[in-house]
């Protein structure tokens, strides 16, 4: 089978978010980058599917030149090749993002054939727009299931599970299909050193799409008013235990 998995480069924000002076972006000078957690699992799922069923996995990102790092990371754990839609770093709105991905898929279809499965994260860690996978599915005329926590290929169909309260809803859809996954669907592996070396030799097809005028237009970012607290220090070390248990009693949480 052939699987396409889409990822987005995002900063690792750590404990406190600081903005650039123009308030348009997060200050990332001292931060590392990764892909959204749901997408890490989407990449792992793509690699496992190809390990089980054979075929080819391809990773796609729309992002700045530096997003090559995230494409190499995905190829280091086993994805075969990459498609990089290179931007100038300015964020694209979800409609424009989906349109650019669909265009890249159409190019693939003309030269290499169709994908059987398109994997996305349910929502990106940063923008959280909850829609790019659905938009791509609509444009391609494919079924889409979101928020998936378990995925199994059964012949030419997919069996999918999505959390609904404490239970799980079951879905069954024919391939080809679009699926957006949640973290927890699997435990992503770490890349090995030989995997990283192989990834350096795997191909990346780059193109530079033109960013359309956004219809959901970011104006500026705001760090929410912090409810910064002055924690009451109950003590140091195990000697603090009696004070802690007093507090548990005061809060009414001692059974």
């Amino acid at each position, binding site marked *: 089978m052939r699987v396409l998995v889409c990822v987005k480069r995002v900063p690792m924000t750590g404990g406190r978010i600081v903005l650039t002076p123009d308030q348009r972006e997060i200050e990332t000078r001292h931060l590392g980058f990764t892909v959204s957690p749901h997408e890490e699992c989407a990449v792992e799922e793509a690699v496992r599917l190809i390990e089980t069923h054979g075929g080819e996995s391809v990773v796609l990102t729309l992002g700045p030149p530096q997003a090559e790092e995230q494409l190499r990371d995905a190829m280091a754990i086993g994805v075969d090749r990459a498609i990089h839609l290179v931007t100038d770093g300015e964020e694209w709105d979800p409609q424009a993002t989906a349109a650019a991905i669909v265009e890249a898929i159409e190019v693939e279809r003309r030269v290499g054939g169709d994908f059987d499965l398109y994997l996305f994260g349910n929502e990106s860690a940063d923008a959280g727009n909850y829609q790019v996978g659905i938009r791509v599915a609509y444009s391609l005329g494919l079924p889409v299931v979101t928020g998936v926590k378990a995925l199994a290929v059964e012949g030419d169909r997919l069996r999918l599970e999505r959390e609904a309260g404490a239970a799980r809803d*079951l879905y069954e859809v024919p391939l080809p299909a679009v699926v957006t996954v949640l973290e927890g669907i699997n435990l992503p592996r770490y890349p090995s050193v030989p995997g990283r070396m192989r990834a350096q030799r795997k191909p990346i097809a780059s193109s530079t799409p033109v960013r359309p005028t956004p219809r959901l237009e970011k104006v500026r970012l705001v760090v929410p008013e912090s409810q910064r607290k002055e*924690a009451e220090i109950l003590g140091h070390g195990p000697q603090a235990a009696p004070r802690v248990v007093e507090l548990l009693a005061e809060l009414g949480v001692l059974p």
Partner: protein
Amino acid sequence: MTVLVLAEQTGGQPDELSLQAVAFARSLFPDRPVHALLVGEAQAVAAAASLPVATAYVAEVEGSYAPAAWATAAAELLDRLQADSLIAPGSDRGNEVLAHVACRLDLPFAANCVAATPGEPIRLTRVRWGGSLLEEALLHAPITILSVAPHAVAASPPGRPQAVETFQPALAAADLAVRVVGRVEPAGTGVSLAEAKVVVSGGRGVGSAEGFAVIEELASLLGGAVGCSRAVTSAGWRPHRDQVGQTGTKIAPDLYIACGISGATQHMAGCKGAKRILAINSDPEAPILASADYAVIGDLHEIVPAISAEIRRVQGR
């Protein structure tokens, strides 16, 4: 112009997030009629009678949830009412159905808004990074499609609509191609993380899967649930269902005891609903101290067992 709110129900009652979406719609457009749409069968009709809106419409769709069918019902009603706004709760289904509607109509969709100001374009504030950051944005569209971030506004109290009207949306076969075909009930018992009154959670500082024995013991003594940070699930020490965070479970216990957890934004997005936070950490400069109400400084492997022993002592167990 009119406003349409897509509502969800549980057991014949409108759910809390849907009543928040109604409140958001009414405060955004105080001079306009606000209608609501429920999709389903008898329970949807029952819930419609408790929605405080002008007309509560029920699209009769038999059987289980099918996102595209819900979207068809919403798009049909939007057109019939010539409504210029479609608002839903920022729930799994609310966000999913609005994205489907936006695709149908080739319109933008703003997910998880906390505030909006009418105008052309409409100006809105929406949640990023699970609530650790806000974005001010403009939505350029003839029809406003937005979802309301959970707990951004207080819910409207349930009330009677002026009218309830049912209709059969014109569904195509494709609208029912993706739908719930079964249910898997949870195997596990015990206190659920999302509903526990006390959650005792461990982070990277716990050091190993075995290290969680002391966390489990304290949680058990307090009748609470065990949680953990993303670092812990990524290391494979605990299953993902124990993870508290932006990509894990969002919790709202009376007391959250965070042991060896630094307090990354990813984690805090999951526990900011806690009424009180007690941090147990060896680092007095850890970011979690800025969000905690109480702290004990030191090695959790000494402190947590001492707390458990003290609980046993005072309770004579």
